[in-house]
């Protein structure tokens, strides 16, 4: 998977459905990227959204909120922690699978 392919995938999601469903699917994608240990793609996703337009930039920032149960914005440090936890989950899954 290269950057262009990832961009095509995200662009397709952005074009699918109304803003609420786009927000839901992108939020879900973000959670999946964290769980799948795809940190680079996660950063690309936020960058990609910021490039689309201002409204999407807000959406990009809001994606991080999903990581916090209280709905408050999270810091990059907390995001990093979630990613590390995601990695731990991946290690368990890999061990489970293999």
């Amino acid at each position, binding site marked *: 998977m290269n950057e262009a392919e990832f961009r095509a995938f995200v662009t397709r999601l952005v074009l*699918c459905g109304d803003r609420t469903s786009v927000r839901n699917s992108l939020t879900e994608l973000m959670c999946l990227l964290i769980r799948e240990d795809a940190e680079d793609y996660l950063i690309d996703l936020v960058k990609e959204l910021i490039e689309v337009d201002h409204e999407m930039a807000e959406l990009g920032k809001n994606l991080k909120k999903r990581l916090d149960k209280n709905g408050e914005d999270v810091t990059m440090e907390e995001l990093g922690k979630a990613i590390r936890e995601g990695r731990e989950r991946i290690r368990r899954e890999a061990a489970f699978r*293999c």
Partner: protein
Amino acid sequence: MSDVPITKNLTIFGKSIPVKGYLCAKNGCPYQEKPDPLKIQLVICPTFYCGAHCPFCVAAGDTGKRGHLDPKKLERLLSELEQQQVIRGISITGGEPMADIVLLDEIIEMIFDICGVEMEISINTNGSALSGLRKISRLPFVDAVHISRHHYDEVKNQAYFGIPVARAEEIRELSGIVKDPKLFCFNCLLLKDGIGSTEEMFRFLDFTAETGIPKVGFVTPMVVNPYVEQNKVSYEDIFPREDPRVFYTKEYCDYTYCRCRDGVYATDSGKLVEFYGRETMAGGPEYARVLVYGADDVLRTGYGEKARVIYE
């Protein structure tokens, strides 16, 4: 070849068991040594009875035997293994583990009581008795329920099993009442007379999204008979390249033994479905990849004739 060990030894019931000593190579990166403490997957087959007649099954023609494991013996075994701290997760399979839902409930209860609710448990079912899941008292603690589903078309799917299995409506209803719908995963064998092309795979993924199931495993069947030899399809041959509907997240390789690739699919309406492809090649490794406790109350170092008995 790197200096990463192929095997390490795990001592279980005083016996030294060679197990996998490395982690699969991820995304083309080198193999890495498996960190200590070593642990291994335990497979429990409550019964060898299945009732289905799938033409691709390794046990085809030999799934009619009734009988089940002795819960008291399993309890002793689990207590021993827990004391030795060698189990990292438990798969409950068969036969059809949901054929006796009371026994399955008892086993799951027993595992959590002995090993704690952190123990990862997955159940593999053909879906013929799926509604029984409602009777599993500790279902919220179960990690995954893998439902065999080999076609999106109800008639074609049922034809593989040769018995009535859960239809989409029933699965949809169940996924709507469980606390975590991510519990469910479809397991789909890739076959020329079924899901055997990229377009069929996309139809299956759309069906999966409509049914409310979040994940599908597309599995290349192992060659166990002439039917499979003629019909098997490799996931590598049908997983599309450069298709905006699909995004691959990672892949693993385990020498010549097996490989897998994970991805996510977006439907036209923007719903996401996770999927993976997996292929296990013939001629597995010499070391134990799993421990198998069967309905005959014997613990072995895997399946087949080569497996060693380590507890009975």
